[in-house]
């Protein structure tokens, strides 16, 4: 009969490598560096995307109800619920991008996000056309909701199969170190991980700009159908479609331009385009030729793409790694708040003053956005000038 010690002597005692690895593992756990396939944020995205399937149905229902309500209070409530349903999944999903993309490429990456968003919008428009069942243009919402949910489930599956966030994030960090992108980050300037006063001011100004241009642009897109039908007495669909088409075409080139010129300058150019087109549209009357409005809306679309592609990366540029989700939240709070307020305010103005108030209203807010953006000093992608021997480095992108 052998003793336990005799049995144990077969394998001996834990070797040094084994013990060292256990200690190293403890160290990792203490520092919270436990890599996993799905990080906290991915887990959050997954949980929220699962909820989203229900949320999507809610969003569709609330959007539908928006069209049928005649009460202002109910309209606001449904609008709020629709936007909340959308925000629940959109913010964390979008926040994944900066996690896995090196800073100089974030404008381009955001361009792709916007492009995909627009494609999503087109798919929804197609659904609305496909499921239009009666002569008066009413939609069969049963099939419509099922189709939307199916798309969401496909998107979820693609996400689960293809997104390997920790691996991509690791590659991004390695690439960042290799390219030396981290040297130009805003975080390096901050004190103790917090934003400096100047950075905080820039963040507030960027968020204010986001809110202001959303107030201007969303007022036009949400009210133009009413404006065109009742004031200009023309068809509105082609004009809005033109703006969207111009935006789609511009997303990628704008992302590329921004990585050359810098985000702030590109945004300012976009705001000017938007301002010019809205100002011009303020003077369009029934007698004006249709093509004039087409050109103005195409210009507005390009301006909007220019702004949209670059504003989110500017906000997250100010965030340190672990804060990206929070800053994404700030961005969406600003944009969503504007989208909640502006249809109501612009609608009220159109009722009180008249339809012709729409474009001047949008022009004023876009002009204000230019002002706030003009004073932004941080969040740009443009690297600071290197000194000494580092100045000889070849700058990627």
């Amino acid at each position, binding site marked *: 009969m*052998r003793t*336990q010690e*005799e*049995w*144990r*002597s*077969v*394998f*001996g*005692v*834990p*070797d040094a*490598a*084994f*013990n*060292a*690895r*256990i200690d*190293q*593992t*403890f160290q*990792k*756990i*203490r520092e919270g560096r*436990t*890599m*996993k396939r799905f990080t906290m944020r991915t887990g959050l995205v997954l949980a929220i995307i699962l909820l989203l399937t229900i949320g999507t149905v809610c969003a569709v229902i609330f959007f539908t109800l928006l069209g049928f309500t005649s009460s202002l209070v109910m309209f606001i409530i449904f609008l709020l619920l629709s936007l909340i349903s959308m925000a629940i999944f959109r913010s964390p999903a979008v926040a994944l991008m900066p996690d896995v993309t090196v800073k100089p490429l974030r404008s381009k990456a955001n361009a792709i996000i916007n492009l995909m968003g627009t494609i999503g919008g087109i798919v929804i428009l197609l659904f609305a056309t496909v499921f239009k069942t009666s002569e008066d243009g009413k939609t069969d919402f049963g099939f419509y909701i099922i189709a939307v949910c199916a798309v969401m489930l496909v998107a979820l599956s693609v996400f689960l199969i293809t997104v390997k966030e920790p691996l991509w994030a690791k590659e991004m960090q390695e690439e960042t170190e290799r390219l030396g992108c981290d040297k130009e980050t805003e975080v390096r300037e901050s004190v103790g991980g917090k934003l400096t006063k100047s950075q905080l001011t820039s963040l507030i100004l960027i968020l204010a700009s986001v809110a202001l241009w959303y107030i201007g642009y969303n007022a036009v897109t949400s009210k133009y159908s009413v404006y065109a039908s009742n004031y200009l007495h023309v068809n509105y669909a082609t004009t809005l479609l033109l703006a969207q088409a111009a935006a789609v075409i511009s997303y990628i080139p704008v992302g590329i331009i921004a990585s050359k010129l810098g985000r702030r300058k590109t945004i300012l150019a976009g705001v000017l385009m938007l301002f010019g087109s809205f100002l011009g549209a303020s003077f369009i009357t029934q007698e004006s030729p249709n093509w004039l409005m087409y050109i103005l809306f195409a210009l507005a679309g390009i301006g909007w793409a220019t702004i949209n592609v670059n504003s989110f990366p500017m906000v997250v540029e100010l965030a340190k790694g672990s804060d990206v989700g929070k800053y994404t939240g700030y961005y969406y709070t600003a944009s969503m708040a504007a989208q909640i307020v502006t249809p109501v305010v612009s609608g009220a103005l159109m009722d009180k003053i008249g339809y012709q108030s729409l474009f001047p209203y949008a022009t004023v807010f876009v002009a204000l956005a230019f002002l706030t953006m003009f004073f932004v000093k941080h969040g740009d992608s443009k690297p600071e000038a290197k000194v000494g021997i580092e100045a000889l480095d070849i700058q990627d992108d």
Partner: protein
Amino acid sequence: VTEQAFEGRVNALRGTLFRVASAYLTRECDRADAVQEALLKAWRGLNRLRREELFKTWLIRILIRECINILRQNRRMIPAESLPETAAPQKDDGSAALGEALRRLPDEMRIVVTLFYMDGFSTVEIARALGVPKGTVCSRLARARRQMRETLGEEACE
């Protein structure tokens, strides 16, 4: 469970973890990889452990799974002829023969013998750690004993 509590429990099981890993894996680096991955998975999944008293068998189960994963990867990646040497026994006081007999056992029997004789696990605990019925553990143990007896007997005759 705090990090300190987790560390305390794992430290108490270092020997067991080493022996379980050794029962499956011969290379030092593989054993270290397996235990590291198992500990990380255990730490992340601690909230799924309903009964604290089952921590030991739960952790062993995770480690066994990791060892099997590494074995599978190695089988895919390393040609049989280049498999590295087996771990050398500490003393040559009969444990070499015992070790050889143990190594000749199939994996599923070796782990049962390791847990039963080296770490004093009960058959119920082994069944829980391996995720098999208690009867299976008993029969594996009996077959392992028989096989080892034969091996040791043969060697004794040589």
